[in-house]
């Protein structure tokens, strides 16, 4: 089978790209292993809501149109939104078509699926930045008596064996699961490495309002000081509701904080002694951002209209943080790995990854692979690229580039 462009993945990024290609009369197909927006139906825990408010959910050819612009969609609602969007833009999606490999063809690329191979001049990778949960190697050393879950197979507090839970990772996923488990009455220990602390609202406005107003979301990949670091930045400690889930709030709910999980040996988990410093780093960084927000408010004449500046209190770090925990002692029945997600590049049969397994690309244009593009990765082109909000601009830029490359 032959087409001009193959888009892999029918999530928000792939569908938005499809719309951009249709606008430009580029013949294409969207290949999807299961159903449109499948991850939002099958790989998200029941209580999950988007971190980003509804006003950020505009897509190419479709304004953000939820009734409550300041609300947060549940995962099934996101899936419905994308299913409806796919219909509205008449995206040529081939569902239940799992891509096996992408390799160079005689012209462009050969995309192999279970149902045969596609020849295409261009391929757009839109499988996202969070395709696989990352679980550290020390998971293998856990005692067999301890159950293990990732964010993909965690189905709520009732789905876990009775007893205490060690949540590993304190980014958006980890703090949300820790809060939910604690509310369900579970003893919870949260292992905290480097993290990003942000208040849900500041001076009466949602934090994403501030991130947009101050220009942070629009910061481009080719303008930031340290791009590798910006691309590794953990997701902020936020939940899609007004409830704070930063460490201060969790400690107030009796979640016990420990340092980053450093190793597991003889059934004992060892935690880093750096808890105090990672909390200090996050507090200082948040204060810098809020300072930038206050400066922006002054400069744009909004200072008097908004409630006065304030600073959240410092993260309360235990005076003597626990450094080791016997996992075989029975206090902990489950370890929940909230230690991050990774893109899945396994289907790429092309020399396009660096030695750490990251895709080498320049704003989504894959390096040394003409006609290959990526979407939906953290800080792909701007800080907004991490979110659905980034899709309209990213797909527009990359669709223009794709068309220009086809003409070369």
């Amino acid at each position: 089978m032959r087409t001009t462009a193959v888009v892999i993945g029918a999530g928000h990024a792939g569908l938005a790209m499809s719309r951009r290609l249709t606008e430009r009369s580029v013949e294409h197909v969207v290949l999807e292993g299961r159903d449109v927006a499948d991850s939002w139906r099958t790989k998200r825990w029941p209580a999950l809501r988007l971190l980003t408010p509804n006003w950020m959910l505009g897509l190419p050819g479709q304004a953000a149109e939820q009734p409550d612009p300041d609300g947060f969609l549940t995962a099934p609602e996101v899936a419905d939104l994308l299913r409806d969007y796919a219909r509205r833009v008449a995206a040529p999606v081939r569902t239940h078509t799992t891509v096996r490999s992408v390799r160079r063809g005689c012209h462009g690329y050969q995309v192999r699926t279970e149902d045969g191979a596609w020849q295409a001049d261009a391929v757009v990778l839109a499988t996202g930045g969070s395709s696989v949960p990352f679980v550290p190697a020390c998971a293998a050393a856990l005692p067999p008596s301890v159950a293990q879950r990732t964010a993909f197979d965690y189905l709520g507090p009732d789905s876990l064996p009775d007893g205490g839970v060690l949540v590993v990772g304190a980014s958006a996923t980890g703090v949300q699961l820790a809060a939910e488990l604690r509310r369900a009455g579970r003893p919870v220990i949260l292992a905290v490495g480097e993290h990003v602390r942000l208040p849900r609202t500041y001076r009466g406005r949602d934090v994403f309002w501030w991130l947009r107003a101050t220009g942070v979301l629009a910061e481009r990949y080719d303008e930031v000081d340290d791009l590798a670091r910006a691309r590794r930045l953990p997701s902020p400690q936020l939940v899609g509701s007004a409830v704070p889930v930063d460490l201060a709030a969790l400690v107030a709910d009796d979640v016990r904080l420990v340092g980053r999980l450093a190793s597991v040996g003889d059934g004992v988990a060892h935690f880093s002694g750096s808890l105090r410093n990672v909390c200090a780093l996050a507090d200082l960084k948040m204060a810098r951002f809020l300072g930038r927000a206050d400066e922006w408010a002054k400069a744009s004449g909004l200072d008097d209209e908004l409630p006065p500046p304030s600073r959240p209190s410092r993260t309360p770090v235990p005076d003597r943080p626990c450094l080791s925990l016997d996992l075989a002692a029975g206090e902990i029945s489950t370890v929940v790995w909230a230690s991050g997600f990774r893109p899945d590049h396994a289907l790429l049969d092309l020399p396009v990854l660096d030695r750490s397994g990251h895709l080498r690309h320049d704003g989504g244009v894959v390096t040394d692979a003409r006609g290959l593009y990526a979407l939906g990765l953290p800080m792909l082109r701007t800080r907004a690229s991490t979110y659905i909000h980034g899709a309209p601009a990213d797909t527009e830029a990359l669709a223009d580039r794709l068309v220009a490359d086809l003409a070369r």
Partner: protein
Amino acid sequence: MTTTTPDTDRPVDNGVNVAALLSARDALSEAPAAAQFTWKASCTWQRGTHSRSTVDGFAGLGTQHRHTSNYTFDVDHPECFASADNGPTPVEYVLVGLAGCLTAGVASVAQHRGIQLRSVTATIEGEMNVLGILGADPDIRNGFDRVTARFVIDADAPRDDLEALLAQSQKRSAVFDVMTNPTDVVVELV
């Protein structure tokens, strides 16, 4: 790199060549084998608890390096442990290592961020219950219960910026990492 403070326009000079460090980072990212370093010390028993260690070279950037001189370190236990006190105790060397590492980090990060330092002093304390090393109580560990480093920094910068210097220097410190995270240690008879 020459950075300037906005109020004075005098170049910030903490004596750290940040440009060289940044270009080394870029170069070594492209040549991972050269980034593999081995640090070395050798030690000879003197008498009693007294030993003398020397540090004269290390390996890295694909080659052997020599320090500009051979450094020697006497290590001993104090008189209250019935020793001759020919030098600091091993655990005090650990504190020296942490102090040196964090202070170097403060100077480097300050240079990078355009903060002129006038003085940096630090006091490092390690608390230890010696019943552990004496083998008197198996529930007490041998090492430190807690290490506290107190820095006094005189510089042209607000307190938040100085706290950020300290936080960043911990984040990038080898000795802080050695002390806060487990390390695989091999000790063998040759």
